[in-house]
């Protein structure tokens, strides 16, 4: 169990090292002649106007909230799915009810227009 996850750590560290080495090697090989025009922000040849880091519209965050709802649902359902064979029918009906409540929530969000883009 412990060694199972140790490999994930080894994998992430070696991936980071190998990719880091590639980036480092490229930094020695490539030319480096910066100038102001080259380092300006790309915007189809024009000077960029105003601040980039602006607020995004609120509808976007509602969509994200619906996502969080379903993500948490899935996290709750994964252990249930693993233990599914040992569950009595009554427990399964409870789970089904739980999912149906979520489905109703999705339909509500749909009705309210939270799922529409623009």
């Amino acid at each position, binding site marked *: *169990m412990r*060694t*199972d*996850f*140790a*490999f*994930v750590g*080894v*994998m*992430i560290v*070696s*991936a*980071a090292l*190998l*990719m*880091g080495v*590639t*980036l480092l*090697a*490229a930094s020695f*090989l*490539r030319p*480096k*002649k910066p100038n102001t025009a*080259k*380092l*300006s*922000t*790309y*915007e*189809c040849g024009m000077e960029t106007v105003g601040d*980039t*880091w602006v607020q995004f519209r609120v509808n*976007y965050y509602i*969509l*994200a909230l619906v*996502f969080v709802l*379903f*993500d948490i649902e*899935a996290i709750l359902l*994964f252990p249930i*799915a*693993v233990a*599914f*064979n040992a*569950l*009595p*029918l009554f427990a*399964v009906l409870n*789970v*089904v009810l739980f*999912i*149906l409540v*979520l*489905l109703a929530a*999705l339909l509500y969000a*749909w009705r309210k227009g939270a*799922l529409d*883009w*623009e």
Partner: protein
Amino acid sequence: MDAITNLLKIISDFVAELIRSVLGFSPLLAELVTMGIAAVVLITFAALSFMGLTYVERKVVARIQDRLGPNQAGPFGLLQPLADGIKMFTKEDTTPATADRWVYNAAPLVIAVFALATYAVIPFAPGVVGTNLNVGVFYVLAIGSGSIVAILMAGWGSNNKYALLGAFRTVAQLIGYEVPMLLNVLTVVLVTGSMSLIDIINHQTLADGNPGIPHILMLPLPALVFLISGIAETGRSPFDLLEAESEIVAGFHTEYSGMKFALFFLGEYVNALAVSFVFSTLFLGGYAGPILPPYVWILLKAALVFFVFMWLRGTLPRVRIDQMHALNWKFLVPMSTVNLVLVMLVLKLFPTSESAAQAFGGLLVTPWVQTIILAAVNLGVLFTALTLAARAARRFRQAEEEMIMRRRAANLAAAKA
């Protein structure tokens, strides 16, 4: 024959034994070195297949579009990936003066690392797997969402309007399509009763090692939805809204060039290949197959799935962003949820194991009968959902036509007066 079948297993055992004999004084160190070598082999495999896939994809898409594709570097253009690599290595790398340097430089590294980390759990042959996590599927999904963070980092760090817009769009798309993916992986876990990828393959294999019932027959709808959301998750055409050139230049990687851009590209391809591997494992029976050795089977299956990706890319036009969100939230998610509930009920009402039938009631059936019932329910849900969607689309179209007619009549009346 046996040696060929277990070739990968024999080699990996030999290397592990060799390291153990050399570093015998410290078992912990030996274990770490073995893991390190395995990790480097997996990463090299992923990186090399990335190079090969860029060539194959360009050739295949070119053929679909009646072009030749790369044909200058080497015979049949085979050295094209190498030429691209040299170009990427020696290209000047510019960092915009206004960029958030740390975030900007870390983003490509993060996306590549997360993409490569997926390969830790993919089984290539019996006993040949980076690590058999008991939460394998969950790990794949969790590590897959790491790329969302990287893309947001890239978009934010570039301090470029196109990049930030692209990143916001991408995040909305990736988190959205994660929901149907999760729900449909859940059905596979339900049928199997385990999240380990090895157990999922064993469930599709008979006791003597021959292929049993692949999950694609049992769960055709989850397989289809997983494929669609897999394409969307890796940001490939027709869901490549993250880099819609006609709208937002190149999306979140507008400001990147040289090796950093190459790492984004690597992340995309490695992720797409990982999705093909996971699809083959979840639905096509993984490495199980007759005659040929297991590692050939898994590669063939993954290649087939990847070919479908390329085929779709060459055939379909890019979808509009509101259509993309509507397809996800108003079609795939409700359909998958209903399907999940029905699969749960079918598994309880028609169990295949005698103990479950005795303990909780339900009709005892053979695996094949259960497969047929599940497939019928799946296809029924799909058919109903498609009918409802078609009806809704027709209503929508009629309403729009009526509005146009009314406006035309009003214009005519105005012209007369």
